[in-house]
């Protein structure tokens, strides 16, 4: 049912639309600035700080990004890591969240406490590295998927969502002789689609943006995700290392516009996921499920 049917106050609706539009504009404008800056020539950007319409469009920054074979390849690597990583995340998180959402599960409190504790205390980078290394996971993608398989934060929230599902629906399956597995697959997951969608988004973005674990655990340069390269390029173009300038010629130091191209490059793929996920946030998923 659309919001407009719920009440008559169109004045509020207009105000709401305007307000949200301005908020969206405030969020969008800097991004548009970055996008335009990425196709402007560096000298124009230097002289006129804000460029609305570049007098000369230049794709040099993007050409630089694609100038090596390894960078476009790493895009594929990132996609692979993100897709499979998120699948692992969601399955493991949901699998653990469901039992923890059943209030009469024996041992629920200690288990939850165990989870919460890990949000506060951690051993740090080096002990984790040693554990991964001793499991012989070094240089494999599993080193990127396993150590971060479940986010305690997401786990707690997902459990929360599962708890809110009306018991009548669960009882209905039990009466028909179903077990917990069937409850999870047939009732919990379909009704939690908005939550699953939200957490998938969180996990996916986490994978897409991560780079340090790749550096730490993976030796082969052709297995590195794209963020590794993007960061290096940004540092290069901001003149980060004076030793570097001692060895490279002018053309090989990227100009300041490359930073902006890098941002677009790193951000746009993720933004494109969102519209597909959006439909899971629609209301009315529960309609028609509780009858009789």
């Amino acid at each position: 049912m659309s919001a407009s049917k719920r009440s008559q106050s169109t004045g509020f609706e207009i105000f709401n639309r305007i307000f949200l539009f301005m908020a969206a504009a405030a969020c969008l404008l800097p991004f548009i600035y970055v996008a335009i800056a990425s196709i402007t020539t560096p000298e124009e950007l230097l002289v006129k700080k804000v460029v609305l319409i570049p007098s000369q469009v230049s794709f040099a920054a993007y050409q630089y990004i694609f100038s090596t074979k390894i960078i476009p390849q790493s895009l594929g690597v990132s996609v692979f890591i993100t897709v499979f990583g998120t699948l692992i995340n969601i399955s493991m998180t949901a699998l653990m969240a469901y039992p923890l959402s059943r209030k009469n599960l024996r041992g629920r409190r200690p288990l939850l406490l165990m989870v919460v504790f890990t949000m506060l205390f951690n051993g740090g980078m080096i002990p984790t590295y040693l554990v991964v290394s001793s499991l012989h996971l070094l240089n494999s993608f599993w080193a990127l998927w396993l150590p971060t398989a479940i986010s305690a934060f997401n786990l707690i929230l997902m459990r929360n969502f599962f708890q809110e599902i009306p018991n009548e629906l669960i009882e209905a399956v039990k009466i028909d002789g179903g077990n917990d597995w069937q409850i999870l697959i047939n009732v919990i997951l379909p009704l939690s689609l908005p939550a699953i969608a939200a957490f998938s988004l969180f996990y996916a973005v986490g994978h897409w943006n991560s780079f340090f674990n790749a550096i730490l655990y993976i030796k082969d340069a052709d297995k590195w995700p794209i963020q590794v390269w993007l960061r290096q390029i940004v540092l290069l173009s901001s003149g980060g290392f004076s030793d570097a300038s001692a060895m490279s010629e002018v053309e090989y130091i990227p100009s300041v516009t490359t930073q902006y191209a890098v941002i677009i490059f790193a951000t746009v793929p993720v933004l494109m996921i969102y519209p597909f996920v959006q439909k899971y946030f629609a209301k009315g998923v529960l309609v028609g499920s509780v009858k009789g």
Partner: protein
Amino acid sequence: MSKPFGKTSTGILRDMKRDRLLYIMLIPGVLYFLIFKYLPMLGIVISFMDYMPFLGILNSKWVGIKHFVRFFTEPMFFRLFANTLILAFYNLVFFFPLPIILALLLNELSGKFFKRFIQTALYIPHFISWIVVVGISYTMLSPQNGIITEIIKAATGDTVNLLGNSNWFRPLITLQVIWKETGWGTIIFLAALAGVNVELYEAAVIDGANRWQQLVNITLPAIKPTIIVMLILRMGSFLDSGFEQVFLMQNPLNRNVSEVFDTYVYTSGLLNGQFSFSAAVGFFKSLISLILILSVNRAAKKMGEEGLY
């Protein structure tokens, strides 16, 4: 409503047998936490040692609370604590409610396309790295010819240096966080709102309730559990200041308010590979966060809400 079974030991075994599928489901997750979270946690022990990598954990010298003593007796300590706490409070009071309000407003939007457009736009700042955000802030606020500086000059005649003014550091940090994270923060609340039973709204409309009454009587109670949980979880990261952002915004002129735990540990601990010291400070932070979470969780339960556990 599930009724608890008997409290006798046969009751426990019976329950566990009944729920054996659930326990099986728990196995992968529990293994994960044990191997990748608790096993490395043994490494916390280095905060009580002078850890030397070449010697390993077993052979490094035990020094007890030496690093903690160093940390507490630094004259900087109280300043650090105060700066970190105040920044956290700003965040809690000024930022935390905003994604909720925004989610409620978004919820009232009709028109699928418009809604999708607005939401995508609102999420974009989350993906822009802090380097860029701070860079843009500098450009706009530069004392030399930043746009905002010029506007203020035109309005009041004064040339201000907001970036170098320690009074403006905290508001600027908070405003940046608001811009960057409010949109993204609505996601979890929108997911909660999507689960609200539509029939409740239908019934309310029939009863003549207006938008405000629907909000107060249906919507808010429906997302209250989510809000409470988010609040409690927020306590776990209360002492985290968003290292990258603060580090980039720090400068000699605002250091008295901008030096926080995370930046201090970075300069004095991690830059020099002082593992034990930074581990000790991390341990201290975790201890405080634990106390915070436990207290807030307890308070929530006393008020009749579901806690974390």
